[in-house]
């Protein structure tokens, strides 16, 4: 039998203005199990909390009901008060008579009546409450960062800086990601490589950071603080610890016709290659799809020229198993395919390119050594048309594009247009836009500079079609402000392709049981207040995997994710939420329904030996809840057909008692 104390708060006039608090206190004093009932001006104040503490001692209370504001506001406060006075904090219930009562009612009679009913429900629940103790789990003090672009690099550096070991898993042969492919960065126009490569070197030299390049995560098990991850290290046919990165093999390899993905296929590389000069790790990789030795067994030139003896044609994929306390997803983005946009003739003409291809064309390390030349004939283009929003901001039913704004295109197009006019004043540069969106520090100023100082023609309207005619591209577009249809003879057309999450994100989300939106961007735990955490405990988000982002924003988010990881890894033990699911093994029929509905992967099935009444034993398959992973959402309790699943602190019978008290 509980001994319950009821404490009704006035909250100044917030509650007392519409609710007769004395009447509430008096009425609840008569409820079953209530031995003490009072009211006070501000229960959350020190004086109010002292009233609770004194009453606990004086009346030997075992349960507390506080009729006050939302539990979101002060449940923690009153739980701490109870704990300080020696009562289990989970014996405290809050009846929300402010947000759900006094604030929404105007007259005192109905307000008081409702407050009493809400109080009765809370008393009914406390009568059935049991003390709960949160479990503790140890924390593996190592973090995993999936993706080695600027997001992953920054997160890893920040975590390592705090003294925790970090592993980066990158599927490409080198870290660096998209930023390594860029030429200049807006709005300050510093060279991307100049600011990125020192960070890549920092990663390589940091003894807390290990890089698993050319590797992929293939399985994730476990839970926050204790993830078991399998990493596939794809065979690169070059011993990573032996190769010196001298590049002799990449010059002698006879297979010269391999499209170079780093330059987006605009030039060729060899079958053995180092993606770019500043690659980290600077180790060669053999492309098994093109290597003659691997395909036909005839060649072996690279092995002959390699003075270090690093070539190993017999290498196999290896699987590494590691334990981590936290996982950061930094899988990044890609431009969408332009194949379905026939109107822009992307697949018909080499001179219609995407903005990322334009980056490579203007990059000193690119296929043209930074000279802006037409891909078709290598001539200098004089008229360049930029088309914005290609595949962004489409109808939700669109099969070609995305519904969202890709966010970065307005700025990089302004950058491309400005730099082109700066380097080649003899060019005519047109930018067709629907809206120019430049919120960001010094962003709009940058765009205006492109227009006012560099004379880029910004035209409000869209390009309708591009048709290759001889060496020219005929661009038909509308100028909505002048009310004209324009026909421009262009030499080069640049499409600002929408960006989408990397294709590896969806299978990874499944492995992590992390949620995604309809566009395959990872969902954050709260869009405003928990923007770098996934709803799955221990999984954090960094960069464009969570939504379109530019570099400054990505770096900020990467640092924020690192801070969250550090906060987690600093703890020796994790205290769980004790309000978790619990299965009654005697009632469980082993149907697996709960396992299927659990969004967090907290439920597993075990074969367990049970002693029968006749002293025989029997093995039955029963559900087991991992309390460290369970978030107490209650899906399983609803799905369980045999009624074996229940939520501690929110058991079916407790909820029913509340409902009964309200309906009484």
């Amino acid at each position: 039998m509980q001994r319950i104390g009821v404490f009704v708060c006035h909250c100044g006039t917030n509650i007392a203005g519409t609710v007769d608090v004395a009447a509430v206190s008096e009425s609840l004093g008569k409820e079953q199990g209530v031995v003490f009932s009072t009211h006070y001006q501000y229960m959350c104040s020190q004086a109010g909390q002292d009233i609770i503490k004194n009453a606990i001692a004086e009346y030997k209370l075992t349960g507390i009901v506080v009729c006050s504001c939302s539990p979101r506001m002060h449940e923690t406060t009153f739980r701490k008060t109870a704990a300080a006075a020696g009562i289990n904090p989970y014996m405290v219930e809050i009846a929300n008579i402010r947000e759900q009562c006094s604030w929404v009612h105007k007259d005192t009679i109905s307000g008081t009546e409702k407050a009493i009913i809400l109080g009765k429900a809370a008393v009914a629940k406390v009568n059935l409450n049991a003390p709960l103790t949160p479990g503790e789990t140890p924390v593996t003090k190592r973090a995993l960062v999936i993706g080695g672009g600027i997001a992953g690099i920054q997160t890893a550096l920040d975590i390592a800086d705090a003294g925790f070991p970090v592993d980066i898993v990158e599927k490409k042969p080198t870290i660096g990601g998209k930023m390594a492919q860029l030429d200049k960065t807006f709005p300050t126009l510093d060279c991307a490589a100049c600011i990125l490569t020192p960070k890549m070197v920092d990663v390589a030299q940091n003894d807390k950071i290990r890089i698993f390049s050319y590797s992929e995560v293939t399985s994730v098990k476990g839970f926050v603080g204790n993830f078991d991850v399998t990493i596939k290290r794809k065979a690169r046919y070059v011993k990573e610890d032996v190769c010196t990165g001298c590049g002799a093999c990449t010059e002698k390899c006879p297979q010269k016709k391999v499209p170079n993905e780093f330059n987006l296929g605009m030039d060729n590389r060899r079958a053995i290659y180092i993606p770019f000069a500043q690659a980290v790790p600077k180790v060669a990789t053999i492309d098994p799809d093109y290597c003659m030795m691997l395909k036909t067994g005839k060649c072996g030139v690279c092995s002959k020229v390699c003075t270090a003896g690093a070539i190993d044609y017999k290498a196999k994929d290896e699987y590494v198993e590691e334990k981590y306390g936290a996982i950061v997803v930094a899988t990044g983005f890609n431009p969408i395919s332009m194949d379905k946009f026939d109107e822009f003739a992307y697949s018909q003409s080499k001179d219609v390119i995407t903005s990322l291809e334009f980056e490579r064309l203007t990059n000193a390390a690119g296929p043209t050594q930074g000279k802006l030349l037409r891909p078709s004939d290598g001539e200098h283009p004089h008229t360049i048309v930029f088309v914005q929003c290609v595949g962004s901001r489409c109808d939700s039913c669109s099969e070609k594009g995305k519904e969202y704004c890709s966010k970065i295109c307005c700025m990089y197009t302004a950058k491309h247009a400005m730099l082109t006019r700066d380097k080649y004043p003899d060019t005519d540069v047109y930018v067709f836009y629907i809206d120019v969106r430049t919120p960001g520090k010094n962003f709009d100023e940058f765009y205006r500079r492109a227009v006012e100082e560099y004379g880029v023609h910004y035209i409000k309207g869209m390009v309708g079609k591009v048709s290759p005619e001889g060496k020219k591209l005929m661009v038909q577009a509308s100028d909505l402000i002048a009310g004209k249809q324009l026909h421009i003879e262009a030499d080069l057309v640049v499409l600002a392709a929408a960006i989408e999450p990397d294709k590896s994100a969806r299978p990874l989300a499944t492995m992590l049981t992390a949620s995604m939106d309809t566009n395959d961007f990872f969902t954050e735990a709260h869009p405003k207040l928990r923007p770098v955490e996934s709803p799955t405990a221990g999984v954090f988000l960094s960069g464009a995997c969570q939504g379109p982002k530019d570099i400054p924003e990505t770096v900020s988010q990467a640092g924020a994710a690192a801070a969250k990881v550090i906060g987690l890894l600093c703890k020796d033990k994790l205290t769980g939420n004790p309000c978790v699911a619990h299965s009654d093994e005697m009632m469980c029929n082993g149907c697996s329904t709960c396992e299927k509905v659990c969004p967090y992967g907290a439920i597993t099935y075990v074969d367990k030996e049970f002693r029968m009444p006749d002293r025989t034993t029997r093995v039955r398959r029963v559900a087991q809840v991992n309390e460290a992973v369970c978030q107490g959402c209650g899906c399983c309790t609803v799905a369980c057909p045999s009624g074996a699943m229940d939520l501690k602190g929110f058991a079916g019978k407790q909820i029913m008692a509340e409902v009964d008290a309200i309906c009484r």
Partner: protein
Amino acid sequence: MADMERKREQILRISGVNPRKCMRCGKCTATCPSYDEMEYHPHEFVYMVETGEIEPLLKSESLYKCLSCMACVERCPRGVEPGKLVEAIRLVAVREKGGDRITANDIPALLDDEMPQQAIVTAFRKYQK
């Protein structure tokens, strides 16, 4: 006024177009092959129906200059389908008393070796009640 509002409703119902979906990019007009022939262009059709300026559209020659090629419908990123709107307005125009654009008597004059007969049949079907 009430009559115009009724016609606007009728146009929206026939076409199934929601002009509010338009984000004013002008791609429809950019892609239109009849641009030079038209007084009002596809994006203006959408905008004017949205704001209720139906009367000038009903009287406009543009209704008969539209080739119904549906390039604007195909290219619109927002799925607004301006071409269907033009069709619907033309239907409303020809359904009015005396609104026939073409009668059987006009056909002999139109016949020549250059013009495919199919085009005349189509025009007859489209421009007449």
